[in-house]
């Protein structure tokens, strides 16, 4: 997919490999917070990227940037270990959860 290079993104085959078998129909996030100019390019050349689409998602923003970052924490994709723990709570791979690594 040489076109992906024009978008300046990588698809790590390793992230897709387990999904090929298990939940091949579930969308995987490739890149969050996709820059607007690239979104525009993607929207124009949509037919050249089979199997990919753009979704609008809420993302965290911190008006005071790093202020009280340790207190507020930040969001990260749910880790394997955490997923094993909280599987019954309705978490799925790719979910964003609050993380504090203070």
């Amino acid at each position, binding site marked *: *997919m*040489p076109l*992906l*290079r024009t978008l300046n*993104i*990588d*698809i*790590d*085959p390793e992230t*897709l490999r387990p*999904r*090929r078998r298990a939940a*091949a*129909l*579930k*969308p*995987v*996030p*490739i*890149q*969050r*917070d*996709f820059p*607007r100019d690239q*979104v525009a390019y*993607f929207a124009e050349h949509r037919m050249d990227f*089979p*199997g*990919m*689409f*753009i*979704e*609008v*998602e*809420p*993302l*965290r*923003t*911190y*008006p*005071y940037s790093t*202020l*009280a970052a340790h207190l*507020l924490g930040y*969001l990260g994709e749910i880790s394997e270990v955490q997923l094993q723990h909280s599987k019954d709570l309705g978490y*799925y791979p790719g979910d*964003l959860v609050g993380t504090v690594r203070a």
Partner: protein
Amino acid sequence: MFSAVYVTAVLLALLAQTSPLLFTVGPGLRLDLTLMVVVYFSLFWGWKRALVLGFLTGLGQDALSSEVLGLSALSKTLTAFVVHTLSRHVQVQSLIVQVLFTCLAVAVDTLARLVVLMVFQLPMLGVAHRVAVRSCNRPCSVSCWRRASITDSRAPCSMAIYVRTKARAMARYSSPGEPGTCDDEVIYIQRPLPPYDDGFRRRLWGLITVVLISLCLLLGRTWQLQVLQGEYFLRLSEQNRLRSLRTKSLRGKILDRHGYVLADNRAAYTLMAIPVDLPRVTNSCRSCGR
């Protein structure tokens, strides 16, 4: 609402059909109004309803006529089944299609009856015969059917014999007791009840047993599918139809004690991929992706 319409239509058809005027349209012809009702409703109704209504209509017809119990029910159910199956991919609103399906239904209905009657060697009912009448004890008029006191060895046992005297022959009957001519038309019409006849009764009960057993089989299978395995099939069909997509909800804002927003949400674009829809990952692509 719809079932009320249907019940009214069937009752009207049965009433009209049991009136003596329409017993036979002409020699050898039989008008089956209920069949048209069945055809119409199986064209526009659902799958199970078509079968049930075909069966119930046939049963009602059986109850009112003196035919073998279950014969009409069987043939009507079969007709409803065939009509509904064939009409599923057809635009049924068109009048031509409706007429065609009515013709088809008549063919199926008649064929089913004939097959059953032949298998069980029952006399064919509702078919008028034209034979010569030797004598008639009462004057007949063209406009009405009179019971003739003749015995005809060819008459099916469940038939009453009616004589319609042709206008030409009528003059002769003005003097009672005078023998008729060969032009007289004899029409057999079903009696209200079949007379006592050992062989006929035996075959009748055989047929009723067969019909009842097959009905029990159908009912049992329905019960098995709907009650015993109902939930299983429901789950299967839901899995066919539904694919759950998760939408993410907003996380709450975090405010400080003065109400200043410390953490908020904003809209962001995310590039997503559905793994099955992606082109095959080849070695060269892996290297170019890197």
